[in-house]
Each structure stands twice: as C-alpha cells, then as structure tokens.
C-alpha cells in the first residue's frame, strides 16, 4: 500500500551549533509522499535537510533509512547518499556544459555511457531546456540554472529528493514548471519529496503532508488541508495565517 512504507525516520535528533538549533524526538517520512516543511526563518529547516542528507553529523540521535540506521562515513553512508539527493536553494552548477552537469550523478554511478546522452536529452526536455545540452552552464539565467540543477538531481532516479526552497527568487512560469515536474515525478515514479519552502501557498499547492517547524522543534504535522484550515497549535495558526512576525 502506497504511503505506508517508511523511507526515512529520525529519532532524538538534535543539532547544536552555538546553541541548539534542532531538536526532534521521533518523526517518520513515508515513501511516495510529498512533504512540505514550513516555518519561520531560522527555524532549522535547512539544518534538518542537511542532517537528512548526511552532509552534517547530528549532535545526538539517529537517522534510519529504509529501516536501517545510517552512519555518517564510509561506504555505508555513500550507499545511502546515492539513494537520495538534495537541491540547494542556490544550486552550484559545475563549470562545464549543461549536459555534463545533468550527467554528473549518472557518471558517479557508472551508468552506461551510451545511454547517458539519451537520458540527458529526455530530462532537459522535461525541464523545458531542449537544445541546451551544449550550453556553458555559467551562462544560464537563474531560472534555467535551477531547472538544470533539478534535472541533475532526478537524473539518477533517487528514491528521495530533498529540496531547499527550490523556487525562491524564480518567476511564476518557472515556479509552475518546477511544481509540475515535482508532481509528475511523484505520480509517475513514486519519488518521495521533502521540500522546504518559505511560501505557504506553495506548500498548500503541492504538499500532501506539512510539517511546521518552529525554533528547532516540530510543532505540528498533518495533512496539508488540515494544517491550513484547522491547525491545532496557536503558533501554527499564526504562521499559516501570516500573523507570525519574523
């Protein structure tokens, strides 16, 4: 049954920098869903994603991927990392052609060379960048670069895609294209998405489940409509109704 299988779980996860910025007791993400993580600036959203992507070691606690505790280092970490990927808010494109960028993850996984080009073409068409394969990635506009980063992330069909504000600073047509792509991929391949967004309207448009993070803690989790129409916590209500000052 779709949506019942747990893909990722965290237990007693915390992160301390100068102060504690994240403290979560237990939370599981189900396979095949689109999660929206919302919350005010500094709530710990990016930190949460970075821990999930094993880019940063947690101060305490554990992460379980498909039921197995993951380690931060070595081949085991690499194996887990290869099943997920993250798109940063300001993605870095490599100083090479668009197609080399999109093919990077495939190359890292020793995907057959002769099939790579075809895959790249299909993906570029999907993100509306047909004919861009040989363009120098450094010459792309912000929206084009963001779409290349997305194509690069989904090229190797990860089970889980972490997105940190994937459409911040983009114009409406780019936003629509990216949201459509997320919905299509989710429907066609069952890819799980965890998307941090400042934009509560975006969360409402595409997320099935919303997590409200505040001062490093999960305040409320629920089906999207419920979070927006009938939030249980006063802070959630303030946030989704635009009354939280930050």
């Amino acid at each position, binding site marked *: 049954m779709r949506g019942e299988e747990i893909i990722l779980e965290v237990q007693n996860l915390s992160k301390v920098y100068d102060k504690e910025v994240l403290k979560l007791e237990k939370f599981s993400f189900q396979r095949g869903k689109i999660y929206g993580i919302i919350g005010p600036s500094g709530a710990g959203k990016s930190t949460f994603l970075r821990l999930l*992507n094993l*880019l940063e070691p947690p101060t305490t606690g554990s992460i379980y991927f498909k039921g197995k505790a993951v380690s931060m280092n070595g081949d085991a970490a*690499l194996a887990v*990392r*290869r099943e997920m*990927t*993250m798109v*940063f808010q300001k*993605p*870095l494109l*490599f*100083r*090479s*052609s668009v197609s080399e960028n999109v093919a*990077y*993850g495939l190359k*890292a*996984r020793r995907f057959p060379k002769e099939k790579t080009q075809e895959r790249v073409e299909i993906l570029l068409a999907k993100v509306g960048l047909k004919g861009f394969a040989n363009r*120098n*990635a*450094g*010459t792309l506009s912000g929206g084009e670069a963001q779409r290349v980063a997305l194509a*690069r*992330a989904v090229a*190797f069909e990860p089970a889980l895609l972490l997105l940190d504000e994937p459409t911040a600073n983009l114009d409406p047509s780019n936003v629509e294209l990216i949201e459509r792509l997320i919905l299509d991929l989710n429907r066609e391949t069952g890819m799980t998405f965890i998307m941090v967004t400042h934009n509560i309207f975006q969360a409402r448009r595409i997320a099935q489940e919303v997590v409200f993070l505040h001062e490093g803690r999960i305040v409320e989790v629920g089906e999207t409509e419920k979070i927006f129409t009938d939030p249980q916590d006063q802070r959630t209500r303030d946030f989704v109704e635009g009354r939280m000052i930050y």
Partner: protein
Amino acid sequence: MPPLLEGISEAFYLILTFDPYLMRIVFLSLQVSGTAVLLSTLVGVPLGTFLGLKPAGRTRLISKLLYTLMGLPPVVAGLVIYLLFSRMGPFGVLGLLWTPAIMIIAQFVLALPIIAGLTMIAIRSRGKTIQETALTLGAGKLLTAWTVVRESRFAIFGAIVTGLGRVIAEVGAVMMVGGNIAGRTRVMTTAIVLETGKGNFELAVGLGLVLLLIAFIINSLLYRFQEGGKNSAW
C-alpha cells in the same frame, strides 16, 4: 654605443643564433624550475585542497605558517638547505651540494608554500559548496576531491604559474646551493649576476631578455586563466 643598447643588439644576435652557452643556461633554468614546480604542484595542490576544505578555524596556525613561507626570502631558504646538505649537515652524505638536484630542492621549498597557499585560498571560497554538491549527487571520495580541484582549476593554474614565476626569477637560493658552476649549475639569474660583474653586458642583457620573455609568457597565461575563470566553460 651605450652599454645597454650595445648589449641589446648583441643579445639579439646571441638569441637568434641560438648561442650554445646561452641556450645551455636557459635550458637548465627551465629544467630546474620546471621540475621544482612540477613537484610542488604534486604536493601543494592536494595539500592546499585538503586545507581549504577544513574549517578555517582549525587550520589557522598552518595557514599563518604557509603565508609566512610564501614570502620566504630565497637566500634564507638557500642558507637552510645549504646547512642541511653541506658536508657537516645531516644530509651531507648525499653529496648533493653544487648539483642541479639540490637547486630543484631549494626551488621546491620556495614554490610549495605559494602553490599550496594559493590553492587553499581558492578552495576556501567555494570548495565546501562544490564538495557538498558532489557528495549529494552521489560522488565517492575520489570523484569528490577531483571535482573540487577541477572546479577550481583556473585559480590552481594561477597558483602554479605564480610559483613558476617566483622560482625562475630567484637568484639567492640557487646561487648558494648550486654554486653557479658553468655548464653544470649555472642558470639565467646567476649567470646575469656573474656576466654583469665581469662586464659582459651583451650576455647579461641577452639572458635578461629571455627571462623577460618567459615572464611575459607566464603572465599571459596567468591573465588567461583569470579571464577564463570568469566566463568560459573550458
């Protein structure tokens, strides 16, 4: 004719006729400095990359040390190496004093901090993001390191060329450990000092011109790498 003008016209004659004495000196210079820079690159680029990826707070001491060594006066480097390799020194038994090998060692010591230090600075600015991008796309350790270096290639080439520029023009260290022996350890800079002292201005000026030409080529390369870093996909 004033000595400088006379020197220049004679110098062109020597250069254009591939004067064997001049050619041997130029060739040895390129050989010594080229080898030293190659070795410094092999050590300095990985070292600088490693340091550049560490949090700045944890490499403060070694960074300061590198910066200091970047400005190490060649005569001081020459002195230390002389003492280490002289007959009394711990490496005296190797008998490397007054050979091209020890000149390479001296220039290696001079070029290494420059190449490692400039690589470190370049990696520090963008390296972390590059590293994380590679990791999140599923790259292993080796591919990640390679990606970081490749993405910083303009700055790293700049570092290498700066290192070459420094050692090929230095005179203090090679003079002290090489001894400026004709046909064996005489390089462009030491030859210029000698020939000027002897009043052979045409040879000195000829060597000076070759050195200038090399400096020009080096800086043109540097300029190209910096331009390339801005906008080309190369």
